[in-house]
């Protein structure tokens, strides 16, 4: 009976061997996949087991962490002045997940980033608890406050401000807004709060500065002017253009109308921008044709998503259109649509003598001990127009502020250039128009700020809505805040 016994011994050995092999497969080969499986609750438990790193503006954290009792998740995210900063931070919620910076830089904030590996291993040996790193943003607290407070009194809208010389984003505000602290935890009440916000018709969780595109209206005329100068249609901003009034759009019998009786017949470029002539810029677009117009628009960043590193929707300059549609597109109507960030980029390129810098909002990533893990260096994105042409355009935009539609953006002792826009929207212009204002400020040492403001003010009487009236004061306050903080 011993021979079958020996075989049984081997069989039992094989059973144990099979278990050993399976265990190696599970705990060695498949371990990472299983450990990071989306269903694995250890991942969120681990994520909220220690305070999350902070998002920092001007050296001060705008986020924090609070200990919660009686839950798997030990710490929850808190936000300082949440509604003001939420377009910058996004949210980190134990129940819902994270968005924007909270999501993109999650590995640094939780301390899981591979670049922190060495440090983490050291901490493990010394028995120190894992800590999250910090995200240092480029934002300017004073500018953000000016932008948010300016918008808050006026209903819906957004502001994007950029440092033209580096591309650093200085302000990014959106109203109505929400406080991400209200649903950072894991309770049903917080989930309900989120649901309510999500379904709100005013879309408080929409980041209008990056994710909403609006018809840019007359502010787009600076792009059309840049196209006219760059493609050599006109070279002198002070000589008369060949612009009839009234002007019937090519291939149609429809006149392109100006807003009121303004002197647009054969107006100079400077004059046309000052009073915002639809006829002059419509004709320029139509004369240049859709391809040249699109080329310039795309050099400014249209038709492309931006990553700052939060994704910004692509602004749109249409590809297929006939001549009258080209004319309409060139004055910021038809299908032309831009995010506030995009219009701030346009302004910043002009203010920076023609060089467009890549916009960004994360200056550096820090390890928990404040060592720099990654530092952003400004990058050139392109040269949509030459230095001379950029300076010509600056000249024109300064005229707009000094003696045109944008006088409300004036700041004593500072050179300011700008452009207003009042964009019609809705079927047959049935809805209240959007008020736009784009501008930059210049000092002796260069241009510290370019800003784009859009206000969707559905409450104001229709006739009161204008870029100059509603949006320009906000832009001025933002610019002033940046200038003051530079002193």
């Amino acid at each position: 009976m011993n021979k079958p016994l020996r075989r049984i011994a081997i069989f039992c050995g094989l059973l144990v061997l099979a278990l050993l092999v399976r265990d190696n497969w599970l705990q060695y080969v498949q371990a990472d996949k299983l450990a990071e499986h989306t269903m694995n609750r250890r991942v969120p438990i681990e994520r909220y087991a220690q305070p999350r790193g902070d998002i920092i503006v001007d050296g001060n954290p705008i986020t924090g962490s609070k200990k919660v009792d009686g839950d798997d998740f030990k710490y929850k995210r808190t936000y300082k002045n949440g509604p003001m900063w939420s377009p910058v931070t996004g949210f980190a919620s134990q129940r819902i997940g994270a968005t924007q910076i909270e999501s993109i830089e999650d590995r640094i904030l939780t301390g899981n980033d591979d670049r922190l590996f060495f440090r983490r291993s050291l901490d493990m040996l010394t028995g120190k608890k894992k800590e999250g790193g910090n995200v240092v943003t480029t934002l300017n607290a004073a500018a953000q406050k000016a932008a948010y407070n300016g918008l808050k009194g006026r209903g819906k809208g957004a502001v994007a401000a950029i440092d033209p010389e580096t591309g650093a984003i200085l302000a990014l505000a959106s109203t109505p807004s929400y406080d991400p602290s209200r649903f950072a935890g894991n309770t049903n009440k917080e989930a309900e709060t989120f649901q309510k916000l999500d379904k709100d018709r005013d879309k408080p969780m929409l980041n209008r500065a990056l994710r909403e595109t609006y018809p840019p209206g007359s502010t787009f005329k600076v792009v059309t002017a840049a196209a006219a100068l760059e493609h050599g249609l006109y070279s002198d901003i002070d000589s008369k253009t060949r612009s009839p009034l009234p002007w019937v759009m090519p291939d149609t019998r429809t006149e392109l109308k100006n807003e009121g009786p303004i002197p647009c017949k054969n107006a100079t470029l400077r004059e046309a921008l000052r009073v915002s002539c639809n006829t002059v810029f419509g004709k320029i677009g139509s004369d240049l044709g859709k391809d040249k117009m699109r080329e310039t628009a795309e050099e400014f960043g249209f038709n492309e998503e931006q990553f700052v590193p939060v994704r910004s929707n692509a602004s749109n300059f249409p590809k297929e259109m006939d001549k009258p549609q080209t004319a309409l597109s060139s004055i910021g109507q038809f299908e032309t649509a831009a995010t506030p960030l995009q219009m701030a980029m346009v302004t910043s390129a002009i203010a920076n003598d023609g060089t467009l810098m890549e916009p960004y909002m994360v200056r550096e990533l820090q390890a928990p001990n404040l060592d720099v893990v990654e530092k952003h260096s400004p990058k050139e994105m392109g040269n949509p127009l030459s230095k001379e042409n950029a300076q010509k355009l600056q000249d024109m935009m300064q005229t707009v502020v000094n003696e045109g539609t944008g006088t409300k953006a004036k700041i004593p002792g500072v050179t300011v250039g700008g452009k207003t826009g009042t964009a019609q929207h809705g079927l047959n212009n049935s809805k209240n128009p959007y008020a736009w204002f784009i501008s930059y400020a210049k000092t002796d040492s260069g241009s510290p700020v370019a800003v784009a403001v859009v206000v969707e003010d559905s409450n104001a009487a229709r006739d009161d809505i204008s870029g100059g009236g509603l949006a320009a004061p906000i832009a001025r306050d933002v610019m002033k805040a940046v200038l003051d903080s530079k002193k």
Partner: protein
Amino acid sequence: MSSSTTHTSTIGAIGAPSRRNTELALLVFAVVIPLFAYMNVGLAISGELPPGMLGYGLGLGLLAGVAHLVVRKFAPYADPLLLPLGTLLNGLGLVVIWRLDQSERLQQLAKASFGAFSPSAPKQLLYSAVGIALFVIVMLFLKDHRVLQRYTYISMVAAIGLLLLPLVPGLGKNIYGAKIWIQVGAFSIQPAEFAKIVIAVFFAGYLMVKRDALALASRRFMGLYLPRGRDLGPILAVWAMSILILVFETDLGTSLLFFGMFVVMLYVATERTSWIVFGLLMSAVGAVTVASFEPHVKVRVDAWLDPFNPDVISATGTDQIAQSLMAFGSGGTLGSGLGQGHSDLIGFAANSDFILATYGEELGLAGVMAILMLYGLIVERGVRTALAARDPFGKLLAVGLSGAFAIQVFVVAGGVMGLIPLTGMTMPFIAYGGSSVIANWALIGVLLRISDTARRPAPSPAPNPDAEMTQVVRP
């Protein structure tokens, strides 16, 4: 020439050393290791030494000491490894059950489903004590395992009786879809765990008597030796009955265990490979038949094939397999450390059927491999006992018990690790459950008794009356 002065008989009373001191030394390790594990858990969870550490340590030490003294006195030549292995596994089991008692998540779960939470570790210590008591009883009253041969047919009746108990109305208790418990006072018992040992006695006794008939009086049919019905009949009937009962009780693991044990013992008894083929064929037929009319099985196969599929999870009503796999994965090579994992996410069976997942997460690949090797050692010591046994009954009983033990470990660990469909049994010694611990201590007791008989030196021969005559006559 001087050799002729000694006894001519070569089987002397010298024999194998008893190895009792080896056992004692190993037992010290088997008690100290769980003690350190307690310390580790306490420090990891609350930063201080656990209050019950001394109690559990003393309890485990006392049990091991009593068992050792009984073995030293009543089975001095028994295998020295089996008792320490059982003690170590039992001690580690107590630690991990105690660690899971500390889980707030499981406490809340218990409050939600039963209205109250009561810690499992003290009960497990009590069960372990009862188990050791049964072990001692086996040692004291079973002087020779061959006595069990007398009870072959009584064992058959007893096994079927035990298996039928849960179906008795009023006595049986349905817990989570399996009717395998009976309720006695405050305790619930799984009779199948005890039936395992009793049925091994029956198989061994019957096969020992009938093995020649089974092996030789057979007709050759398509390359297989088919035995006569009257030889195979009774054993087949018992086996089929236990399977059927277990299918009605939806205890698939135990049916698999009984079948495996039956094939192993039949093969050893008849020494015919054709039995393996025959057995595999029967098991295939059985599996397909059961799977076709038993929805319980289909669901488990689905859960095995695609444990992370949300549809499967909603069909089974639990994501235990997925949770178990994630626990193993999260443990990785070295584990998170005792007390620092989240294996309590598995839910209600975390400290019984799924306890191995906690070892996987908190001790990692290294720890689970060590545990599996401990089981492997128990099995191989059991088979070694069978090899050493001098009587066919002892051989069959030892190989049956150790084979059943191996299959149980394989089925449970394989199910928890997703190697085979989950069938629901407990990991011997380490899982929470009274019947399991008690029955397995009895199993170790029987194995020790057989090994004692096997390794015991033959009695010294009677003095040779011729010795005087062959003496060299000195001049």
